């Protein structure tokens, strides 16, 4: 027993503030750090979307505050088209990388994966700490990408790195979109405003982020394969763990591709190579090789960047959504008081989605001039993702079927996740067909589709997870009254924002334009644009209620016990909040599957994973049901 005790305390609880809260090795602290990073990043991304909506619905309005902050990006308080494009770019980049990739995986995964499998920490705590701080550095660099172009003095800070790092050209941040398509992204300043120093920082930030994510993925995979407690077989793991594991595998295999592509792109920009730059390029009134500002480039292929980017980019959307799926399955079962319907099918569906995710990147490139035969192959593979997605959806509905639902805020957000995933996924079946996508590709229907299915659905997964696990993390409930207000306004709000975008897209409204009032055929849609903006303003305002709720509840929320939701998995076995080594020295033993709710013959409607048969009140009468 003493040896057991020794083994668990692999690193003692730190006492100093810095080792305890800043450079902590504790996976729980690191998880909270990731969540705080995401909460900060989502604020930046959200304010950017607000600015975009203001511009789209009331173009030409004078916003003096914009001029104060961005004298060159918004001269006279009027937003330039480049300023708008840089908002599009940075909104996408920050949201996808620093919100949707950090919080669900790095945040909740870090905090709860070791506890749910009965481990006392991640396999490599130091690596875990590094993965967060590397990601944090990436976030700082992306913030530099925003400000380095808009301000003359900040633009000189990095001049020592070379002429391509001199900023202050007038816009704010890169304008290449979150995809940064070559060749314009590969040329540097000559490609025009917003392709200068900010773009360098954008590429560097993405590369740093790749490294951080890889370190994290490494840790997740090893921890899950190697550190499960006694009795925790793979098929007894909560679905959240399966989702985090699959996400880690996706990150492990896709981020190196982006990292490789990013290095090549950076070399094109700063070293003068031509990996993504074709010969004979004529840009900004200059021919490649005709001018010292535009040296000779030859032999590269811009389409290759698209391939590399989307080979990463498509798995990335599953990296964003899979943890939300796991949390939703977990929470639906807990508050429906029923086992997850078809546990095994759920596990295989997660894997199938992850696997298929690697073979569909071409559907982002139907209009790149690819062979129609390739397009058909990518279409068929894309549509086949509908099968495991439908398996998951019907199993969620099966879990809910005939149950007495406890409508907590966490449950509402989980139900919202299912709703948004279906609503957004349906348009995926339309866009996944190359013949339809050719017409709709650069319109608002794509914006509506991916915001619903990977953006907002993932966010709802995170909200559900936060309301669900907040009592375990902080020992206090996240306010339920404000939470329900937050849910309903957000839920209705996001539908009001993104559903009209489908209509706009079919009507032919293009993406990434800073102003639509100039176009005769789109004038009739302007009331809809204003409606979307109003909905966005209300929804964004509601998020500040959420921020207030979080801060208030950490200090003043209703106190929670060890298992306030009457849930079954290991995190509810330990103290609230969990001690430094998670289980106070004695790791639990697992005797059953993760969702033993409403077991016939059992006296209580839930049996925890760590409860032995003899411990279950009422004796030996129960048995698990086949999942």
């Amino acid at each position: 027993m003493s040896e057991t005790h020794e083994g668990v305390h692999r690193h003692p609880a730190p006492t100093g503030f810095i080792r305890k809260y800043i450079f902590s090795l504790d996976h729980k602290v690191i998880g909270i750090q990731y969540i705080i990073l995401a909460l900060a990043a989502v604020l930046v991304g959200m304010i950017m979307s607000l600015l975009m909506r203001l511009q789209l619905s009331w173009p030409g309005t004078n916003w003096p505050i914009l001029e104060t902050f961005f004298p060159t990006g918004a001269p006279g308080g009027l937003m330039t088209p480049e300023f708008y494009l840089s908002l599009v770019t940075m909104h996408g980049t920050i949201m996808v990388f620093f919100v949707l990739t950090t919080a669900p995986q790095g945040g909740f995964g870090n905090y709860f994966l070791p506890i749910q499998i009965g481990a006392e920490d991640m396999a490599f705590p130091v690596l875990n700490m590094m993965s967060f701080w590397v990601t944090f550095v990436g976030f700082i660099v992306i913030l530099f990408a925003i400000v380095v172009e808009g301000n003359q003095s900040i633009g000189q800070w990095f001049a020592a790195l070379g002429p391509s790092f001199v900023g202050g050209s007038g816009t704010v941040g890169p304008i290449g979109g979150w995809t940064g398509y070559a060749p314009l992204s590969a040329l540097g300043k000559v490609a025009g405003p917003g392709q200068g120093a900010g773009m360098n920082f954008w590429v560097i930030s993405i590369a740093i982020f790749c490294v951080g994510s890889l370190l994290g993925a490494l840790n997740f995979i090893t921890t899950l394969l190697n550190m499960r407690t006694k009795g925790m077989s793979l098929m007894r793991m909560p679905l959240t763990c399966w989702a985090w594991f699959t996400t880690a595998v996706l990150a492990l295999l896709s981020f190196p591709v982006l990292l490789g592509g990013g290095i090549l792109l950076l070399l094109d920009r700063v070293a003068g190579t031509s990996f993504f730059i074709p010969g004979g390029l004529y840009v900004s009134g200059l021919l490649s090789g005709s001018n010292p500002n535009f040296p000779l480039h030859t032999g590269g292929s811009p389409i290759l960047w698209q391939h590399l980017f989307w080979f990463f980019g498509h798995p990335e959307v599953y990296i964003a959504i899979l943890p939300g799926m796991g949390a939703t399955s977990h929470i639906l079962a807990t508050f429906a008081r029923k086992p997850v319907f078809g546990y095994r099918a759920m596990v295989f569906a997660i894997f199938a989605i992850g696997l298929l995710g690697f073979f569909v990147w071409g559907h982002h490139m139907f209009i790149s001039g690819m062979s129609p035969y390739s397009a058909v192959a990518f279409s068929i593979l894309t549509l086949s993702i509908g099968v495991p997605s439908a398996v998951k959806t019907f199993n969620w509905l099966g879990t809910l079927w005939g149950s007495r639902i406890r409508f907590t805020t966490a449950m509402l957000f989980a139900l919202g996740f299912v709703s948004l995933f279906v609503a957004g996924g349906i348009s995926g079946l339309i866009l996944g067909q190359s013949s339809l996508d050719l017409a709709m590709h650069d319109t608002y229907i794509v914006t509506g589709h991916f915001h619903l299915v990977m953006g907002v659905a993932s966010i709802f997964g995170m909200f559900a997870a936060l309301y669900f696990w907040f009592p375990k993390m902080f020992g206090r409930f996240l306010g339920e009254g404000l939470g329900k207000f937050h849910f309903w306004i957000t839920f209705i709000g996001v539908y009001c924002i993104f559903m009209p975008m489908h209509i706009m897209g079919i009507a032919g409204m293009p993406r990434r334009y800073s102003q639509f009032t100039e176009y005769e055929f789109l004038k009739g849609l302007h009331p809809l644009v204003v409606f979307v903006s109003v909905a966005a303003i209300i929804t964004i305002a509601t998020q500040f209620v959420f921020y207030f709720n979080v801060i208030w509840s950490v200090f003043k929320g209703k106190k929670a016990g060890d298992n306030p939701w009457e849930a079954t998995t290991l995190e509810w076995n330990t103290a609230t909040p969990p001690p430094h080594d998670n289980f106070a020295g004695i790791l639990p033993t697992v005797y059953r599957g993760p969702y033993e709710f409403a077991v016939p013959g059992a006296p209580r409607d839930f049996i925890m994973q760590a409860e032995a048969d003899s411990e279950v009140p009422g004796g030996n009468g129960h048995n698990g049901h086949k999942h």
Partner: protein
Amino acid sequence: MATMVTSTKSVTKKGTGSGAKFPGPNGKKPGGNGWHGDDGSRRKFSPARYRITMWVVLAAVIMMFAALSSVYIMSVHGEQRVAMPHMFFASTGIILFSSWTLSRAKRSLQLEQSRRYVNWLLVTLALGLAFLSSQLIGWKELKDAGVYFVGQPHSSFFYFFTAVHGAHLLGGIFLLVFLLIKSSMNILKPETEKRNAWAAVVALYWHAMGAIWVWLFLLLLVLK
């Protein structure tokens, strides 16, 4: 769902719910993931953890080289032929030989011949440094032949592949130095499980770097 509500038989059956029956995941031994002994007590060290991690690292490294190789394959149009520097043939021989010497080192470790183990490690380390030097000489050969980093992607890749691979091999060299330091610290102690595990994963990494170089070399040699 029907079984859940209607089954009465299963209620009386002794069992433990979903998943494999206790004890033991996978129906084999308790734990089943290399972390627990058969008695369920906790071991301080898990060689499996190091092994799994190294394979996972290699999966990521291989994905990156696969992506870069695809770029190379798609970028080569046969417009500009670059002669393979002679030094790269030599470096290929060196790195293959270093894999053999490292396998000798591992063998010595298994036979608990510490002195030999250290010697073979030193030989491998020297060969690793020789490999990196030969790559640099190869660069000079390329430069003398008028093949520069800036130019056609084809010629850039001669430098780029060697640089990225060299950076990864440098990591391997640090790992070898780490093994040497480790063995010098407990050369008089009996063989430890940890030391063997480290040696095994470093060898795995080193062999993988050799294999990746051979792949890159053949790619540059054959596909022009």
